[in-house]
């Protein structure tokens, strides 16, 4: 792959889109020495195209910024950003004709010198939908690059672990959490204007810095993301306390796929899986079944 060529192609595309007035802004990433990896930027002038960058540390999912900007927006999106975008389209949170997707081929990103969270399970180096393609050699065609998902099979782990082992893993992560909610802020599927955890007016949703609140926050969030999480791992990447609950989300992804045959982030026209039903839906685990 050639990150310099990809960066140049991205800058040229941004310059053209803004100069010709095709879009009002371009969402991308820019070098940030203070944090040590590129961070999000929204550019509105063609002169700023040079601020955009594409390198091996571009692991941040920027799809969430489509929800915080208006007008016609271009976005430099890799495969996982596009999965998030497809979910947002399926949930009617974005209009397809307002979004211009610059598809960036991505061979897997690096964070802190190691493969970034999520890249181990990535099904494809190529974004699912795009309006412009920038292949890994900087050309306008995607190169033939195979991805081999090799991450943990959570269902298998679940079946082979005792309740005590599962509880230990869960509580070990829960106890690290400081309830800062950065994971929610970074998540492209957590776009509620009034998140349940902020609704302190409801007395039964009491928020304390205790274990019960942390359990309630994380399990409820996992429920809200069922059938909507695309395994981009934005939450894990931003957590300053190193909380790693990705396996819960993956476990649900596997369950939803096995039970309802649904994969999130593939079809922008699909009806969200938790917003549909069939008369034959599984009742495994129900009483007397």
């Amino acid at each position: 792959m050639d990150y310099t060529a990809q960066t140049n192609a991205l800058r040229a595309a941004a310059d053209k889109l803004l100069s010709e007035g095709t879009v009002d802004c371009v969402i991308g990433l820019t070098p940030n020495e203070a944090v040590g990896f590129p961070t999000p930027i929204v550019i509105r002038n063609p002169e700023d195209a040079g601020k955009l960058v594409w390198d091996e540390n571009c692991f941040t999912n920027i799809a969430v910024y489509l929800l915080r900007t208006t007008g016609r927006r271009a976005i430099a999106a890799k495969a996982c950003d596009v999965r998030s975008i497809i979910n947002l389209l399926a949930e009617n949170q974005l209009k397809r004709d307002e979004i211009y997707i610059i598809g960036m081929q991505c061979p897997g990103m690096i964070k802190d010198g190691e493969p970034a969270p999520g890249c181990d399970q990535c099904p494809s180096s190529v974004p699912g939908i795009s309006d412009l393609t920038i292949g890994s050699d900087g050309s306008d065609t995607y190169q033939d690059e195979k991805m081999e998902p090799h991450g943990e099979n959570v269902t298998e782990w679940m079946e082979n672990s005792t309740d005590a082992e599962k509880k230990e893993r869960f509580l070990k992560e829960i106890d690290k959490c400081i309830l800062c909610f950065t994971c929610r802020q970074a998540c492209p599927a957590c776009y509620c204007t009034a998140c349940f955890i902020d609704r302190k007016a409801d007395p039964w949703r009491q928020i304390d810095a205790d274990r019960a609140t942390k359990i309630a926050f994380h399990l409820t969030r996992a429920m809200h993301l069922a059938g909507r999480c695309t395994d981009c791992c934005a939450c894990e990447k931003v957590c300053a306390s190193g909380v790693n609950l990705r396996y819960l989300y993956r476990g649900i992804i596997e369950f939803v796929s096995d039970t309802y045959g649904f994969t999130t982030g593939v079809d922008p026209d699909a009806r969200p899986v938790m917003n549909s039903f069939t008369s034959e839906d599984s009742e495994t685990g129900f009483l007397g079944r």
Partner: protein
Amino acid sequence: MSENVNTEWTPRIVTFLCNWCSYAGADLAGTSRLQYPPSIRVIRVPCSGRINPQYIIKAIADGADGVLVSGCHPGDCHYLAGNMYARRRFAVLKRLLTLAGINSDRVHFTWVSASEAESFVRAVKEVTEKVRALGPNDLGGME
């Protein structure tokens, strides 16, 4: 966990019942003088589809020993499809709780109609026995 379980211990089972069927079924069990263990604490809801999964999570996180949810049979929901959405939600929730180490025998879902007092009693007995076998829920509440 299992040492301090004795047969006298009665678990506390938070029970969500749909107003239109299961709640009436429970009522019928009462007026028919059917006996069942005093383990359930009933919360009446308008429909199984009204049960926010957070209610169940909150009950478990705050230390309830078990949860029982019962609504109208599929096809009989008074709001047409509330229980159909609930069915998927409950299936996913159960998997999520299992992943987190909460034994799947603590959380139960079933369908009971207004005339099925006997199946309501059977469900309460079965769930009480299952939760009693697991012993108290030591997950939440405590630091």
